[in-house]
């Protein structure tokens, strides 16, 4: 995998690769928390991710 600094930002293919990397991260984060907390019920999953349903725009 290329480092982000090597990504040419205007390249659609690179944007897709970066997006896939983020989606893998998103999924792996849920998996890691499930392992850490022994399990994540549907309510736990919604609680973990709910801020991200409500949050729009802005990179903080």
């Amino acid at each position, binding site marked *: 995998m290329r480092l*982000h600094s090597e990504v040419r930002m205007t390249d659609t293919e690179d944007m897709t690769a970066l997006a896939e990397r983020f989606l893998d991260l998103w999924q792996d984060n849920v998996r890691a928390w499930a392992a850490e907390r022994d399990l994540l019920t549907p309510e736990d999953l919604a609680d*973990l991710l709910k801020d991200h349903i409500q949050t729009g725009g802005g990179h903080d």
Partner: protein
Amino acid sequence: MTEPRPHLKPSAIRGPRPMALHLQNSLTLWQTAPGGLARLGTKNGFWHPAVAAEAAALADAFAGLDDTAQAALQAAVETGAGARAQAFLRGINAYLTHPYTRPETQASVALRLGGAELLDYGGDGQPLLMIPSLINPYYILDLKPGRSLAAYLKARGFRPFIVNWGEPGAAEQGFETGAYVMERLVPFLRHVAGIAGAPVPVIGNCMGGTLALALAARAGGHISRLALLATPWDFADSLPHAGRKYAPMLAEFMTRLPETMPLPVDALQSFFTSVDPSLSSRKFRRFAAMDKTSEAAEFFVAMETWANTGAPLARPVAEECLVGWYRNNKPGRIEWQVDGRTVNPADITCPVWVAGPTEDRLVPQASAFGILKHLKNAESHAPGAGHVGMLVGSKAESGLWAPLHAWLLREGS
């Protein structure tokens, strides 16, 4: 020309169960992902330490983008998340319509007691009793050609007998674990030992191993050696245990059911799903991309069907396990009663082999190995696998079957 739409097989495949929960998890996971991109740089504990470095790297990349590129990435994430959600649905569709059906087990019924059967795999080898969990079907011990511990042992001089618990019948609806041991396992063991004319080896898998421990404590004279595979024993608070966290929810749920109603399969499946809510998305997307004629695809279908074909758990057994085992740790505290007496592992004198897979999320290795300190004549084995992969995965032969076979052949202890 449009290809005809594949039809759903008229088979036992009804999974993944509960379907609504799997769909909901996938929806939650992928619908929230685009919003998550905007929070990449946060340090509020949202990102698990195991993925924090990757989150930071992606945050740097994101911060380095101009507005146009950020919008393009946002669009790519939305597209990618939608594609993953769709691929998950394609995988479920492909699973439900896959033509593979597991070959019928080549075994005869040696003995039938209530809803349970003792299956005889035949041959003239050393009789051996195998006890599966009460929760999923027995045939994880004989999943399919090339993925069968029973067939492996039969080919090497053993005559496996496997307990098929079946659906709890009228009698079993009122069974506690002790009744399963004394009224089902003891007669089955006597039958197998009678054929052998001597004590026989016993292999217990998962909860079947816990029952086998009680069997060895009550009818040890018929057992030559005992192998326990991913068998829960110690439910102490100090150990990681997904089931211990979920058990109170199930116990509470059960209080709302009619008094004698067994614990439904979907209630148990909800627990298995919650151990990793991202798992079904990953595996069904992988299946969607798989060559459907490959052995790997058939294996996937066989495994999923097995995992989704459990029987409901008799109410007293469910209450005993959820409260007596998971909450009060009666086995680990040597307080579990079978036939009116405490099950004391110190009463077991035969050699015992305890396999605790290193990656087991359902029965943590520490829970399985918790029995070792109570046994006089035991040794441990740690396959580098998960709870089910240990039995049927690509490394099952080298990681479990061969070491188990070697131990079964060993003289004395």
